[in-house]
């Protein structure tokens, strides 16, 4: 059986600058992969290529064995790839409920109705159930632009997860979120991800978050994959610590990624 995601010699250049090169990655259902690297290492470029946001300069991207090269973000999304953004991409001047209802309409119903009310009792109930799952139900009637970053991030992810994508890419899900809320946010997101059995990649700078939630780590450096393997192994690699993490990581107290438990570090 072909891998859920397979990239072959993936490359992206911007003029004379090579943002990503020679990226060969395979990902299977249920895997949770942390993507680490310093700024400009190629993490977001990689995520953007896999989700059709930018096209690679070379190489191939296969989702369930089919190439997605040349496909638009919409087509990639319909192929079962979901994503969230570093800066939550939402309908800012609409309420949380309206955001969720629109997401339901396009991701789940997939029928552009012209006269049926969007705000029907049945649809509202379904939307609220999702908001409850992501623990943001109390913000149902709030306008998105007035909400804290953490709530926006959760809503962004909740909307992206609605279509039940086989592959979910989260670009810095905890950036801009208060330190004390990071683990709460990730607990909620990971609970939803595990429930769906989606293969998940999340870009992250906080090694505590990576250690806690990733089964596997992809370490990027200078546009290339420097290391790819189990979280503990990659993070204890001196080269990764020197070039990617930037300092020594003491992993002696860390529980293995696959036996993560609830509770905050």
């Amino acid at each position, binding site marked *: 059986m072909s891998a859920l995601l397979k990239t072959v010699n993936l490359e992206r250049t911007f003029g004379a600058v090579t943002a990503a090169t020679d990226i060969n990655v395979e990902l299977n259902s249920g895997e949770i992969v942390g993507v680490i690297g310093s700024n400009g290492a190629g993490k977001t470029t990689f995520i953007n290529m896999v989700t059709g946001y930018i096209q690679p300069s070379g190489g191939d991207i296969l989702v369930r064995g089919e190439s997605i090269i040349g496909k638009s973000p919409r087509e990639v999304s319909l192929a079962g790839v979901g994503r969230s953004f570093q800066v939550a*991409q939402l309908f800012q001047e609409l309420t949380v409920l309206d955001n969720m209802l629109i997401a339901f309409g396009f991701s789940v119903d997939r029928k552009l*109705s*012209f*006269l049926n*009310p969007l705000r029907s009792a049945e649809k509202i109930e379904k939307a609220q159930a999702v908001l409850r799952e992501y623990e943001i139900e109390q913000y149902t009637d709030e306008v998105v632009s007035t909400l804290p970053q953490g709530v926006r991030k959760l809503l962004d992810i909740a909307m992206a997860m609605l279509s039940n994508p086989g592959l979910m890419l989260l670009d810095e899900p905890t950036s801009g979120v208060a330190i004390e809320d990071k683990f709460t946010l990730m607990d909620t997101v990971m609970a939803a991800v595990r429930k769906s059995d989606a293969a998940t990649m999340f870009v992250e700078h906080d090694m505590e978050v990576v250690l806690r939630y990733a089964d596997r780590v992809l370490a990027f450096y200078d546009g290339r994959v420097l290391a790819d393997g189990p979280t503990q192994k990659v993070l204890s690699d001196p080269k990764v610590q020197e070039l990617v993490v930037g300092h020594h990581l003491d992993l002696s107290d860390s529980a293995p990624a696959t036996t993560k438990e609830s509770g905050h570090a």
Partner: protein
Amino acid sequence: MKTKSLALLFILGLAILAGGLLLPQWMSYLFTIAMGKGLVVLGLVLLMRAGLVSFGQGLYYCVGAYVAGMLTQFAEVTDILLILLASISVSVVIAAIIGLLLCRYREIFFAMFSMAFSMILYGLLVRMQVLGSTDGFNVANPSLLGWAPGPEGASDLVLAVAVFLVVSLGILAWRYLNSLSGYAGEAVRENEIRLEYLGGSVFKVVYVKYIIAAALAAIGGTVTALVSGHVDPEMAYWTTSGEFVFIALMGGTAHVAAPIIAAVLFEALRTYAFAVAPYTWQMILGFALLAIILFMPSGLWSLVERFQNKKARKTT
């Protein structure tokens, strides 16, 4: 809220119909013209809610009017329903073709491209002697299902049909705006990327809205042609499209009744301005627009919203 909105449209329609039938001929005429323009602006509002301002709705307004004129003059078709059907069909076909290009653009490019197409039609009409060139030509009196009311009753017939159209299309537009397609417009305005990643086609959303707006503009043009008994290329000129944008800004985009009310007020204001200052009436309109932008940037409908909010605060 649903019932209230529908009731408001219904009452508005009845009031205009009663006003038009009971009041003097010139006022009936003014109301009918306002209804026609209100429909054009209703279409424009659908686009504006998606963040797109068209400066070219005059194109479809003129197409609707010319189809009506040509059918009555050259094909001797006077049935108002057939004329409306033909106007809508022609405008939809044109919009379906032009929309393929136009709906890929946003902001000023969309505005300017839409204006360019209306100016192309203007240029064509000015050069066509057979259609009266700059003078245009007259439109025969309409009939309805075999009943021809003649010159005296024709304007009342057009008014009644216009009011029926405003109310029924207003209700449909209201339902549309509350559907997924309606909300999709706001989603396009707010964040196209998120909509695409949800699996929605931004192009399709905009394209459908553009075609609906074109059909509404053609209906408005047909109503205007039939009540005024005349069509000319000015209907496609950019100032006519600008007038629709003026009315849209005046009313606001928050409710389907806003463009209709604004169109009535605009026609009244223009008539008054022309009566008191025949050479500088545009200045009065300019000051009116300035005042609205400064004090009611969301249009006259914001007054209704303010009233509703005040009422809601009192009850809580």
